[in-house]
């Protein structure tokens, strides 16, 4: 690229560059400056010194976190809750889509689909409000569980063994319908002639599903899997913040809720920024690894 070309480009396109200015400024202020703000992680932040003038402590904040018992607790909770969520939430929409795909009555299909999307449109606060109410001392679902002889009557939101199941299953309930959309779209794109050919070869419905339907949507499944694994430890803290109680912290406190409490409630800026960086590094590593594995074995990848 020569200077002359750049000059010509500037003369011809400068209005475009000016138009892009607000967007560029937005990204500088709210994305790149905060990125520089991670220096906080290496400081003992004080209100007087501010971001630039506080005492430099090197990697002390990281070391503090690694040697505290919070590392084990939050990391373990984050991993366990995400893995449980993935095991429950990843296959569920695929199964739903496959079942819906077998329905021939299109009104029935439409009605089930519409109803199953509904929880997605209800806000997290309301869903958590309903959860808290249903699992309260004489809540509707507490009652069901008591009658089945599974638990003693009590406020189940303060009962440690049930926090994760409640969190995970309510998540499946919320996302299964909406998550199935993408697979239904993939299913509608499967070439119908393949089924004809299979039928002529004598393949039954089960065989057709196994050998045509599932392979046809497997690129979609793989992409979704990479995305899921890449976001594995990005546990939605919104929901945990609403559902956890100090008595259940032991099984519910994840890295991000810890960052939120330590940083915003207790004002320990340096320390919590360090913890969040730790979280981001793990996430990014997971994303890149998942992508690399997938590229190697299935020729499908995000980047």
């Amino acid at each position, binding site marked *: 690229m020569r200077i002359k070309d750049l000059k010509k480009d500037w003369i011809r396109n400068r209005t475009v560059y000016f*138009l892009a200015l607000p967007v560029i400024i*937005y990204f500088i202020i*709210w994305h790149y400056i905060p990125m520089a703000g991670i220096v906080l992680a290496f400081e003992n932040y004080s209100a007087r010194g501010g971001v630039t003038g506080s005492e430099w402590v090197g990697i002390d904040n990281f070391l503090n976190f690694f040697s505290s018992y919070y590392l084990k607790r939050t990391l373990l909770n984050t991993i366990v809750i995400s893995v449980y969520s993935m095991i429950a939430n990843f296959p569920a929409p695929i199964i739903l889509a496959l079942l819906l795909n077998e329905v021939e009555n299109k009104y029935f299909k439409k009605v089930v689909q519409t109803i199953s*999307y509904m929880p997605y449109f209800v806000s997290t606060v*309301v869903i958590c*409000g*309903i959860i808290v109410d249903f699992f309260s001392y004489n809540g509707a679902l507490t*009652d069901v569980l008591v009658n089945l002889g599974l638990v003693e009557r009590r406020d189940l939101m303060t009962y440690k063994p049930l926090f994760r199941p409640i969190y995970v299953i309510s998540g499946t309930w919320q996302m299964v319908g909406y998550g199935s*959309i993408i697979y239904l779209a993939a299913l509608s794109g499967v070439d119908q002639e393949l089924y004809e050919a299979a039928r002529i070869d004598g393949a039954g419905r089960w065989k057709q599903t196994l050998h045509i339907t599932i392979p046809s949507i497997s690129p979609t499944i793989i992409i979704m899997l990479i995305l899921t694994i890449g976001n594995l430890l990005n546990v939605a803290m919104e929901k945990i913040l609403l559902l956890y109680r100090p008595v259940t912290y032991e099984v519910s406190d994840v890295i991000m809720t810890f960052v939120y409490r330590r940083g915003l409630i207790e004002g320990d*800026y340096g320390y919590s920024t360090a913890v969040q960086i730790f979280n981001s590094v793990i996430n990014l590593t997971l994303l890149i690894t998942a992508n690399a594995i997938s590229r190697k074995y299935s020729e499908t990848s995000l980047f």
Partner: protein
Amino acid sequence: MKIKDTPSRIVFKVINYILLSLLALICLAPLWHVLMASFSSPTLLVQHTGILLWPLYDADHPLTLGGYYIVVKNNSLIRGYANTIYYVAVGCFCSVMLGSLAAYCMSRRKAIWMKYLILILTFTMFFNGGLIPTYMVNKTLGINNTRWVMIVMGVISVFNIIIIRTAFLSLPESLEESAQLDGAGHITILLKIILPLTKATIAVIALFYSVGKWNEYLTAAIYLTDRNLFPLQIVLREILIAATSPPGMEGDINTILGDEGNAKKLVEYSTIIFATLPILCIYPFIQKYFVKGVMIGSIKG
């Protein structure tokens, strides 16, 4: 050609219909319970256990709209509603405008620097400063605890820019060239030619943004402390999760419904319906745009 079903296929079909009906029921049941409870008699409600199929009432304890009366009478909830509508409307407008502007600039194939800009923006999808540094930036700008912070946070999403840009790039270039020959500037081309032609995509983006903004509470929880600015979801959190009442509500419960312990639950149920009904009425009609949105997103992804 219609092939007769084998017996095993028929069994499968029956099971399939039962399973799917069950699923629909499970999706529906919690909100149905809340709806039925919201005008039941509070005294009976407290004695009742299990999922409600119909509202609870008898000769001595009639159905009541008292819960709803308290809800609509409460200033915090009404102001929350108004604030949410404001944040959604202004935020949606800014989001669509800035998003299309960014997408327009980045769809100018001839501008050399634009492809670097795309990279710079995409980078932020994978790296970000995080909670505290962003908080510090907003604090330095002095927009914490103002309406600005609610509009600004999340107003531009790289993902949306990429989707809008793809839609823009699908338009024939000749269209803009002829407009340019007629002397139209960039803004005119964007507003008068490109946006009308891609309004389906823009509508999808606007809907995703609006539903997300309507339901979101974390930004407000982080940045707002002034009650007058609280969006609906924060007031809901107070009532439903923190089990506290916004100012004036407890007094109303006492004077209108009497026995406080019973009535608090009723008000919670009414609040849920009051806050959720609009979106539940609208979503069946807008869901097809969400289906479309998911598909546009997946093609890009």
